[in-house]
């Protein structure tokens, strides 16, 4: 996958027109361990950047997912309800979380590109 942007909360954003697909990074799924449950937002709900929009849970931890950009939810990955492990197996593809229509296109530029994220993660170790 190319051209994705990534937040400091380890969420990737892939923009297509005015709508972005959002998921968590491989680093994040690895840190979280086996995902057992995902709580997704309602389609049509609006969030400001930084709002809590979803929750990804493993056996021993619950991780809030914060909106990496502001906008309205246009779709969610309903397959995760039955198969939350898609997040572990395919975090950047089948394990996507939701789609959001951006209300402020400029926000996408505030996120890191993949190289910047790679050094951000390296700095965490």
């Amino acid at each position, binding site marked *: 996958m190319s051209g994705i942007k990534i937040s400091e909360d380890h969420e990737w954003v892939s923009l297509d027109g005015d709508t972005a697909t959002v998921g968590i990074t491989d680093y994040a799924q690895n840190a979280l361990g086996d995902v*057992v449950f995902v709580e997704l937002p309602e389609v049509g709900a609006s969030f400001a950047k930084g709002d809590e929009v979803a929750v990804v849970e*493993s056996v021993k931890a619950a991780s809030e997912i914060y909106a990496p950009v502001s906008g309205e939810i246009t779709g969610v990955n309903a397959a995760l309800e039955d198969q939350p492990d898609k997040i572990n197996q395919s975090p950047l593809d089948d394990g996507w979380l939701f789609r959001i229509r951006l209300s402020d296109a400029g926000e996408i530029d505030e996120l890191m590109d993949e190289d910047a994220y790679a050094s951000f993660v390296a700095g965490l170790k």
Partner: protein
Amino acid sequence: MMNRQGRKSGTGGIAAGEAPETFTGHSGLDHVEPLIFEIGDNAKTGVDLPAPGDFTPALGGLARQQPSGLAGGGLPGLSEPEVIRHYTRLSRKNYAIDSGLYPLGSCTMKHNPRLNEKIARIPGLSDVHPLQPISTVQGSLKVMDELAHWLKTLTGMPAIALSPKAGAHGELCGLMAIRTALEARGDARSLVLVPESAHGTNPATAALCGYGVKSIPANARGRVDLDLLKEALDDNVAALMLTNPNTCGLFEDQVIEIAEAVHAAGAFFYCDGANFNAIVGRVRPGDLGVDAMHLNLHKTFSTPHGGGGPGSGPVVFSEALAPFIPLPEVVSDGEGLRLREHPGDGDRSFGRMTAFHGQMGMFLRALAYMYSHGADGLRQVAEDAVLNANYVLAGLKDVMSLSYDGPCMHEALFDDSFLKGTGVETLDFAKAMIDEGFHPMTMYFPLVVHGAMLIEPTETESKASLDEFIFALRSLAEAAKAGDTARFAGAPHLAPLRRLDETAAARKPILRWVPNSSVEP
């Protein structure tokens, strides 16, 4: 094969994987035991009741259909010997204090005296209804009054609410009194400060009381950072919730300065009394500036843990909070004792935590324990608990990594840095303890160190028992460092079950037996 203590090895010379597979699936004393629903029958019963005679029911046409519940699965019963065998077999799959050292940090797994159980079953004290006329329950009220007196004396606090049902319920009781007191003086505040090493109940309780939570970091010595605390304290802070001794097993040596700073900011000092066992009879929280503190009777005062409850969490209060505590309250009116159950005119009590008067069965056990120990024995409890923990600390600090320099109080905190590079995870290390005959310590708590291992031996252990425990942990630590990873991977090997798949349990929760597998609940 002989082990390092010169005893015959536990598997009788056969390696674990080589034991013959039994025909029944049972394994000696350990039986595979089905669910009651798989062996019982709706028509079967283990009680003999007189048959109801002829009468006209008055159930208003709302009679239950049989058999009840999902898919008509009903409630299978068994005869008395079958019930006894079923639950006896199940009981043998449990580790318990009665069978061995139970070093769960922050849980105070001490001996549960059987005298307590005998006392709690005296018919004159147990076969009593909570709403009988007050003239008929003077003995029960006396028990409550005595317990209140002992707890107030031991903590040096002037007021007490006995009714909270457990520690977390007591925390809520304490914070509600604080919020009520603040509101009574027209002082709306919105924040509770909680050290990062706190029990999870502290922030959860603050949230239930309508407060935001701010975490206060620890300093390099594992105590609250006083400077950061002072920075965080302002006129928006309602309370500090502090466990002392803290969950790193350390006494907060600046506690008096902490209390002064909290009070200077107009806030209250809530102390989580989970670790009171370390200081009972040697330190009174009232002398430390505490405004409210719950006492877990199942920790310090030996009421049984019972596989997870019931608890009991009386809360002691300072003069400043005394007017706001919940009802009921035992009071003496000269002629005898009575229960104040309803607020009077101008009463500032914040309300009622529970129906009736609290965990009376636990009050009886705790009071029996306090009588048994007396003022002298309780002080000895604290001293022995602290001595035992320091003995373990001293016995392990060269092979495991101690998080903070000792001496500790009643528990010793290690982290997992000694396992670095061994390929052995903290969890594996703990599970290997099971094979050596011990319940693991508390793991991954407190959150302030990496891979925490918190060991609380309690005063219940003899020196010989501690020596064996230290020997086991030293041996495991050395084995890990020597690359003997097989013993850890997939441990335990010798428990009734091997490691359980918690991920599968959480992904597709099966929370009940289903009568017919084709029926989805």
